[in-house]
């Protein structure tokens, strides 16, 4: 039904384009045109499609919730909670669509009939209203075509609005992220105290799972302490940085200051391949090759090493991050003005002394910015940790034991079927929002540092 309606609107818009252009040619015989003939077509087409499609979208967004309110009106006197009402609505909908398998009460049956009836009314109303709008806006547009009004300006203004709305897309995504995270996180914090979450030291959400019933509040208090996850996240990111910073920075310096053109031309893109490899591939590599390897070496040295050690995950993550640091610091170092170098050489300094004493301090803000970006990348990395570092949240500072991270726990909680309304599911969103805030914070600082650095030398 909806598909037919949209196709109809689009087809009508195309026809009106050709019609408008033809009309312009007719007008041309008697008066001077105000714009190229195709603008007459665009004008008609835009007036035809835009209002109808906007109404159509708004209708599709609001129709379900309006129908829902109507259906649930019959149940207001029964003192039901929100979740029960939701359940009833789902049942009614399933029954109306003919795929309900539970037992059917008279009440449900009546509601289902009402649902079908309402849907029918809504559908015919939608078609009628959209047809009316089509007729109205087309006749309005046709009249101004007949009057030979200015045609190019309105079309261009319309296009500009389309462009503007598209650029709001990014804002919309941000709003969507914040709302979807906040909405569930707030409900989570209704069940679990905020301070229990950020200062608690036990993360064991599976404990709260109770079949058919409310979980024990005492258990809840002790199950959602996120400190082990925060610690694990930063610990693994720290290990990754221990690998990535020296290698990345030194190769960045070498590429920008020492390497000949040939080496630079090939080495840089090859190192950047490391950043293009999907993280799930790194995860597989870490779990299957590096993890057992680390364990074997540890055992040979007489240490007790978990097969899913933080060290393996962190090291592999570090390898993944090398190109971020090397490319960014390469760019930053190349941006340092040549006269600083020349001055240093003129004083008799060797190349490495120039790099260490002049270029590095000058490029430091930019390098710090790139490192912060890399840290935010490491904090948000998911698959390596899920596959290579354990899923149990231990509060430990031993790189040979397994730890878990925020991202890994989100995956563990949400893999498979979720039940919304369960504090366990909601806790994933609370973790998500803390992750979002941390990475946002790191990015804002990093971007402003880099920006200030650029301004200094440009």
């Amino acid at each position, binding site marked *: 039904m909806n598909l037919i309606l949209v196709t109809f609107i689009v087809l009508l818009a195309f026809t009106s384009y050709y019609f408008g252009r033809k009309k312009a040619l007719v007008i041309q015989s008697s008066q001077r045109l105000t714009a190229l003939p195709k603008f007459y077509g665009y004008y008609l087409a835009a007036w035809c499609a835009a209002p109808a499609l906007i109404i159509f979208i708004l209708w599709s967004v609001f129709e379900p919730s309006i129908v829902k309110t109507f259906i649930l009106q019959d149940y207001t006197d029964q003192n039901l909670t929100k979740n029960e009402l939701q359940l009833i609505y789902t049942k009614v909908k399933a029954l109306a669509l003919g795929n309900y398998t539970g037992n059917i009460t008279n009440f449900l049956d009546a509601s289902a009939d009402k649902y079908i009836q309402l849907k029918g009314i809504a559908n015919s109303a939608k078609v009628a209203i959209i047809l009316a709008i089509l007729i109205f806006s087309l006749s309005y547009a046709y009249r101004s075509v007949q009057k030979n009004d200015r045609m190019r300006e309105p079309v261009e203004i319309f296009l500009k609005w389309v462009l503007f709305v598209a*650029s709001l897309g990014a804002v919309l995504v941000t709003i969507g992220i914040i709302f979807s995270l906040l909405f569930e996180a707030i409900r989570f914090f209704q069940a679990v105290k905020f301070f229990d979450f950020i200062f608690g030291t036990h993360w064991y959400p599976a404990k709260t799972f109770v079949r058919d019933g409310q979980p024990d509040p005492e258990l809840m208090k002790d199950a959602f302490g996120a400190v082990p996850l925060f610690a694990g996240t930063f610990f693994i990111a720290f290990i990754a940085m221990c690998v990535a910073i020296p290698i990345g920075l030194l190769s960045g310096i070498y590429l920008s200051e020492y390497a000949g053109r040939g080496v630079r031309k090939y080495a840089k893109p090859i190192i950047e391949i490391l950043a293009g490899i999907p993280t799930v*591939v790194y*995860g597989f590599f870490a779990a299957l090759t590096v993890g057992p390897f680390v364990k074997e070496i540890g055992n040979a040295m007489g240490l007790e090493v978990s097969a899913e050690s933080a060290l393996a995950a962190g090291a592999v993550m570090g390898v993944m991050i090398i190109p971020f640091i090397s490319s960014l610091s390469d760019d930053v170092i190349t941006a340092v003005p040549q006269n600083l170098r020349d001055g240093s050489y003129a004083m008799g300094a060797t190349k490495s002394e120039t790099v260490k004493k002049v270029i590095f301090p000058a490029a430091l803000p930019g390098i710090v910015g790139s490192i912060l970006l890399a840290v935010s990348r490491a904090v948000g990395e998911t698959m390596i940790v899920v596959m290579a570092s354990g899923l149990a949240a231990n509060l430990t500072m031993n790189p040979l034991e397994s730890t878990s991270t925020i991202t890994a726990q989100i995956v563990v909680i949400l893999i498979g079927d979720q039940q919304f309304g369960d504090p366990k599911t909601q806790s994933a969103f609370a973790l998500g929002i803390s992750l979002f805030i941390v990475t946002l914070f790191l990015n804002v600082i990093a971007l402003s540092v880099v920006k200030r650095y650029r301004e200094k030398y440009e």
Partner: protein
Amino acid sequence: MNNFKQNLLKKRYNAERRFQWYGKIAIGLALSFLAVFMFQIFSKGYSAFQKTWIVTEVHYDKELLLIDAESPSKDDLENADYYDVAYKAMTSLDPRLTEEEDRQLIQMVSYKYETEVKDLLLKNPDYLGKIVPIKLTASDDVDQVHKGNYPRDIPEKNRRVNDYQLQIYDMLNERGDILSEFNISFFTSPDSREAELAGIASSFMGTVFSILVCLAFSFPVAVLAAIYLEEFAPKNKFTDFIEVNINNLAAVPSIVFGLLGLGVLLAVFNLPRSTPLVGGITLSLMTLPTIIIAARASLKAVPPSIREAALAMGASNMQTTMHHTVPLSMPGTLSGTIIGLAQALGETAPLILIGMVAFVNTIPGTPVDPAASLPVQIYIWSESAERGFVEKVSACIMVLLAFLILMNLAAQIVRHKFEKKWS
């Protein structure tokens, strides 16, 4: 004094040389990581492109098939009972076997061997009543033995293949009845719980659909947004706000987009779970900032002289943009789009959250059928304990990497072939 100076100079030159070596070692390390990595994947994965078959003989006995009709129709063959025929085909390999051993024999081929026996007859109805050779898919364990991935000299208890099966395997191998052929079914069959039957067709189609949906959603919006921000946006607070937003969005961890997909697309809009449609939309939100940034950079690279010339000829701002600036910026935008899509292609975590990790053993035909994607398939398989899946994962990684390399090559070609150099 002079000696002291010379020493100092020597020291400084040594420090210089050391520093250069540090740089070389760092680059060498980075490159060797890549090399080790590729070597590991290829050495583990190449064998998955070979499939092992066991050749035996099957007697399509009418009585055992329970076919009564004199000249059976297609339906009769379809509904016949293949259990005994298939069973006999396998057990005839060792005529002197006991009841315990026949189970072990059957375990040497995939559990779908009955279907394979049936399919051969359906393809060649004139085999009815005859004894014909047949190729049966070897089980995962036999497959691994044949490829030499299983150590044979450990105690029988720790082996998945016992002594009796090894003995039969050796006998067959000597007779040349173990065949190794190119594994077509890896590319044509969907996922399976059995390693020897599992293929990447379902996840490959899932990936293709998600990427197409992602392209359809992100490309138009991103290009339009980039045009607005680069060519029309007034310099004010709100434009700055949009720009900051885009830059930050580009650095949001991918898993947060998964949460967005779960909390909004699935919970609010009730789109079908586990489908490439939802996956593609989620990925498109992620690629949006990447494409916007690339498109803006290539719009910026179009020299102002082009715009000025168009304006001087009397074109409006919109005409200048749409007829001149945007077409000239397209090569850069397109190559940025391809790179953004390649990034989206390798994403796993957001797809897991929206349920594309479900076990799917059918090949999806539309974007609203449940499906996995290649990276998710890698995750699913690497979580399975069976040995046979390790090589499958590596092979799947090789396919994924090949896909990525192709896309990046395409981006390079688009950029170098079509981009105008302004100088």
